[in-house]
């Protein structure tokens, strides 16, 4: 079973987590960048920073995950410079 480490609750089964989509910088939310921000989500052949939620404890945090290998490199609580997670990724 795949394990993800919640920054608060430690290693847990991946089924306890909800994916909330890529992390966007607040600077992306401008009129000029609107199309990109809405429709061109990052899809790198490498590491993606993304929002996750540990559902039972409702802990929202950031994970860095490799989109090719599905390896979760690290998980940590929100940094102040990131905007809020998308609820409908």
């Amino acid at each position, binding site marked *: 079973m795949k394990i993800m480490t919640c920054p608060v609750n430690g290693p847990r089964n991946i089924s306890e987590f909800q994916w909330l989509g890529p992390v966007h910088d607040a600077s992306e939310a401008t009129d000029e960048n609107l199309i990109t921000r809405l*429709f*061109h989500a990052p899809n790198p052949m490498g590491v993606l920073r993304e929002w996750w939620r540990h559902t039972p404890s409702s802990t929202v945090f950031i994970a860095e995950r490799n989109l090719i290998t*599905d390896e979760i490199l690290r998980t940590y609580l929100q940094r102040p410079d990131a905007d809020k997670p998308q609820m409908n990724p």
Partner: protein
Amino acid sequence: MPMELLKYGLRRGHRPYGDIPATPDLRKRYDVVIIGGGGHGLAAAYYLSHYHGISDIAVLEKGYLAGGNTARNTTTIRSNYLTLPSIEFYREGLSLFENMSQELGFNVMFSQRGQLTLAHSDAAMRSFRLRAEMGKHAGIRAEVVDARTVQTLCPHVNMDFGGQHEVLGGLWHADGGTARHDAVAWGYAKRAAEKGVEIHQRTEVTGFGITGSRVTELHTNRGTIVAGQVLQAAGGMNGRIGEMAGIRLPIRNFPLQAMVTQPLKPFMDILLSSSNLHTYLVQSSRGEIVIGGGTDPYQLISTRSSLPQKEALATGALQLMPFLHNVKILRQWAGITDITPDFSPIMGASPLQNYWLDAGWGTWGFKATAVAGKRMAETIATGRVPDLLTPFALARFERFELLNEMGATAAGH
């Protein structure tokens, strides 16, 4: 007599028969280069060579013929979408399957048995009413049916009266069907090759030479070629190929997983789907129960399967048909889908003049194999995007003219 077979095989001039020719040497120039040797690319090659007199075509396939999402989809053919442009497009797509075996002289095992999508909630019933009315408006057969009709159409389904997933009714789409995916690709490949289309397997595009607003060269692992026109139909790799050509596509990759059981006696003569459970079941002509569902819950560019997703498929299948609990799973797999923000494909022009897109097919591409191939061939041959395809332009995202098919696609296939 005993040596007759050996003599036949070894006789002078005997040429072994094969539907698809071996990969020839790559030439320096082609009128049309198609990136992707899956169903869509091969269909486009077929329609170009048979209907538009263009047969100086190279189909470039990174892996083996039709080994990507053409081989991995679960073969649902239907047209009960939500928006008018989608219904009209898929309606034509479905109709092309009706005489495909005759047209190609190749048995694609099209079985127009009807598709039943179950509703386990009032919200699902409401969305079905909208889709049924849109379908009737566009001239397809789609209707909302009650629970009793569900039982008549599919006596095996667990109605779960009073339970958590009680079947309240369904969306009956009598036009829906299924066909053998491999045969569709092979049929198109065979007939295209007969006209001189070259199919280059294990030929990977590694980059483009672009001059001004035209693609002048394609770099491959087998050398560089010059192309008059280029069609991109690369399935799960569409985002990546577009990036190489300098075209930013609104595509994200998600795996889509499926599995099949051991063969059983024929008992299910419809396609059964549940929008709430994100599961669908179809019995193949071999008797296997094909079980499919929604994509993985998070982005991934991988064809690896995962246990949680297979468990979800099994859970949905057992909710609908509990008697399958002792049936063995024979095979399971995953494909990489190229999902667009509105769950509709991207077809037509690109920012490059001689570069055409047939992308963003996500989880819904197989049913459009014929119509996308036919209409993209028309686009390339005439240099004009047909009216049927214009709503699917890449530029729709800049104009906020999205074709939202999430509800009609994500769970329904």
